[in-house]
């Protein structure tokens, strides 16, 4: 009997990286469906474009790096990066914008560091940040949502597939009037004359809390995130840290409903990319902190930075920058949040240098 000596454990669980990745994608589906309902085909086109770009680029680089292409493509990580990036980009973003963002995410965000598991930064957020600072016009052209025409007859949502494809693939700069508008975060940020009630009357896009459409999409991300926590794809620590810190910041600095209002806690929690970030971006395990306590701190850091940049910074939304900044801190957080091991009176924390 030739039986290979194999070391224990001999039994293995059925969990696979690919399964985790597919679960993440599944959890985005309610949000994707709502985005599509409110904004038309743009999100799906984004996903399709980013997904195929990412897989092509990943395949090409794996070949260059002489790695087994099919084996690594199969892990689903490239698809998840592209998918989340596609959700973060405005629907109907021009195809080249998607290409630049995806290409940067895959090449500079992932493979230059050594591929899966080696990247210090969240690749999707790196790609997003690059196009955000490079192409501000395209990146702030968010299409208007279904139903806006009844409130503001000058605006028409882009709902047809053909129309959407034309916007994505039309050459040259886009006429952005008529089908895009500023986001709620933008409106509140740039307002310095009206009270919030007046603002609501003037800008129907603002909705009751954080813009119609957006609120529902945010709730869909929340639902997807709760599903992932229930499925134990990730722990609750990072999302709770971020939402709690952001909620606390917006509560502390909530300046009433006057013109200097920084927005209510609910406005910040349901507005912009907060929920997408909390449940799909900062939960990226590779670039985040690794212990539970570390994740709580990591999430809280993101929440605080998001508020700081949103309210006192130059950008209306800030999830990408906040995540990238906290990615820088993650290794240090890890060194200082080691849990106490069984049989030890206390944890060994710190960098462990000079001992």
């Amino acid at each position, binding site marked *: 009997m030739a039986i290979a000596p194999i070391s224990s454990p001999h039994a293995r669980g059925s969990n696979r990286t690919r399964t985790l990745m597919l679960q993440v994608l599944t959890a985005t589906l309610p949000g994707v469906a709502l985005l599509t309902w409110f904004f038309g085909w743009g999100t799906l086109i984004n996903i399709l474009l980013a997904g195929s770009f990412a897989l092509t680029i990943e395949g090409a680089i794996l070949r260059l790096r002489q790695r087994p292409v099919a084996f690594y493509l199969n892990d689903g990580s490239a698809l998840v990066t592209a998918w989340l990036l596609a959700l973060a980009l405005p629907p109907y973003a021009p195809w080249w914008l998607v290409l630049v963002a995806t290409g940067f995410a895959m090449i500079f965000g992932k493979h230059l560091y050594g591929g899966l598991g080696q990247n210090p930064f969240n690749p999707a957020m790196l790609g997003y940040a690059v196009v955000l600072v490079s192409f501000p016009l395209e990146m702030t052209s968010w299409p208007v949502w279904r139903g806006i025409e009844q409130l503001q007859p000058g605006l028409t949502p882009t709902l047809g597939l053909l129309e959407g494809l034309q916007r994505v693939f039309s050459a040259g700069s886009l006429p952005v009037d008529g089908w895009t508008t500023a986001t709620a975060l933008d409106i509140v940020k740039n307002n310095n004359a009206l009270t919030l009630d007046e603002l609501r009357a003037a800008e129907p896009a603002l909705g009751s809390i954080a813009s119609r459409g957006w609120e529902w999409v945010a709730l869909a991300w929340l639902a997807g995130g709760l599903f992932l926590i229930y499925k134990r794809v990730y722990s609750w620590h990072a999302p709770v840290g971020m939402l709690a810190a952001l909620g606390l910041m917006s509560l502390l600095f909530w300046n009433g409903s006057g013109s200097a209002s920084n927005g209510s806690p609910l406005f910040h929690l349901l507005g912009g990319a907060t929920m997408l970030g909390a449940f799909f971006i900062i939960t990226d395990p590779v670039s985040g902190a690794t212990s539970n306590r570390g994740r709580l701190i990591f999430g809280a850091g993101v929440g605080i930075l998001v508020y700081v940049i949103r309210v006192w910074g130059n950008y209306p939304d800030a999830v990408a920058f906040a995540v990238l900044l906290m990615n820088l801190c993650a290794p240090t957080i890890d060194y200082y949040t*080691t849990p106490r091991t069984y*049989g030890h009176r206390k944890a060994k924390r710190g960098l462990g240098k000079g001992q």
Partner: protein
Amino acid sequence: MSAQIRLWDIHGGIHPAENKSQSTTRGLEQVPLPRQLVLPLLQHIGNHAEPVVQVGDRVLKGQLLASAQGQFSCPVHAPTSGVISAIGPAPYPHVSGLAEPAITLDNDGEDRWTPLDPMADYQSVEPLELLERIAAAGISGLGGAGFPTARKLLSRPEHPIHTLIINGAECEPYITADDMCMRHHAARIIAGIEVLMHILKPARILIGIEDNKPEAISAMRDAAQQCAAQVVAIPTKYPSGGEKQLIQILTGEEIPSGGLPADIGMLCQNIATVLAIHDAVLLGKPLISRIVTLTGAALDRPTNVEALIGTPIRELLAFAGLQPARLHRLVLGGPMMGYTVAAYAPIIKTSNCLLAATLDELPPPPPALPCIRCGLCAEACPAQLLPQQLHWFALGKDYPQLQRQNLFDCIECGACAYVCPSSIPLVQYFRAGKSEIRALERQHTRAEQSRQRFEQRQERLQREAEQRERDRQERAEKAARAKAAREAKAAEDRAAAPAEASDLARVQAGKANTLSPEQKQLKIAAATARMALKKAQKQLAANPDNTDLQAQIPALEQALAEAEQAFEQATSQEGS
């Protein structure tokens, strides 16, 4: 007694498929006597046993074959009667497949016992004597590592045992040996616990059994009605049967890192070990058999057997209906912590389960993907380590950080590797890291020892040189004193003797240029001192850094100056 006590949870843990029911349907069976038994001399942690029989000897069942070498050792007894056919390297159940010294016994089919010495009234016997009896019966821990039991029971006065824990958790999938042992031998186990109570005098006795063994729990509760021991059903979760984990579950206390349960006044014994203690003390029987689970989908009739130590694995598998074509992996122990063995090896005292698995049952692991730090391993780790970080440092061979991250608190339970979605063989990394660190530490110790040896040698050489110098100075002083005495005497003589004689003598001396014997001696002493100085200077030139020589030079120079001065004085006095 079965009043509820408070239970504590362990960190992490997993729930792998239990696969225990396959092997519990046929009860506890007897295997036919094997034709030949192979009895390794090392079936425990510690020193090899030393054979006390020779090839060709006829032995009886239970007779001593090899005696223990020190306290960290266990004797080996004949599991049946027969003839010793070989003593030497023989197959051994180890993952390496390497042979180990063993005694081979050919069964004579009579199964005749050596006279036994049962002890019914052990209550009146001193604990130490009982320990000797347990040691003489060759009992080592039957649950896992095989620590010599008598040694473990030898309580230390500074740490009296207040809690005795009997480990019937049997948390590993597939294994049912302790379960069957409790179902069939509950009364003997309780009697064994009473022996332990007499030895240790603990304040409380807890028997921890996972709640997936209801038959064993009720059998033990029935048997323990008249006993102070408390049967506690604990939630089924791997690895609750680890000594550290079971203690935590039952008492909420943790064994200090690197320490023993005795450090916190506790002692843990496995079910099968307690049974062996009962047999050794009350029946006088040495440890020559044990209960082994035979299971796995490659067996037609998985079961539990009472097998003689030394029975070849293939005979046990054949008894359980092995289908060799289906066998893909043969594991001794469970699927979480067991190791692969060859079927020609024998079972030893620590062998609790043989898992003959098919390809579907234990498929080869898929190729590992890079770690994505998902942290599922950290959630599963019962030692509250961060396996993802340990893996990272192990890959980078960063040994200081590995130790800082408490690598040596890893109990290698395999929970991390079980949950890893990237299918990384984490336990292998940790074992390799541990052995690398141990090797480095050994190297470091050796280097430290040589450094100490070198320094001690240098010190010794210096001491010797100083001693020589002192001796020489003493001799020189002695010579000077003697000379002074002689000179005083000579002066007296000269004062008495006629002057012409002195003149004559001087002329003679001037003529022949001859020296008196004393002068000769002094001249030789001066020449020797000069030679010594020159030699030292020469050595110093070749070895400029030698501080010993540097220290010697002034002393030698002084010695030379003194010798020359003495000689000159002698000659000039002679001449004056």
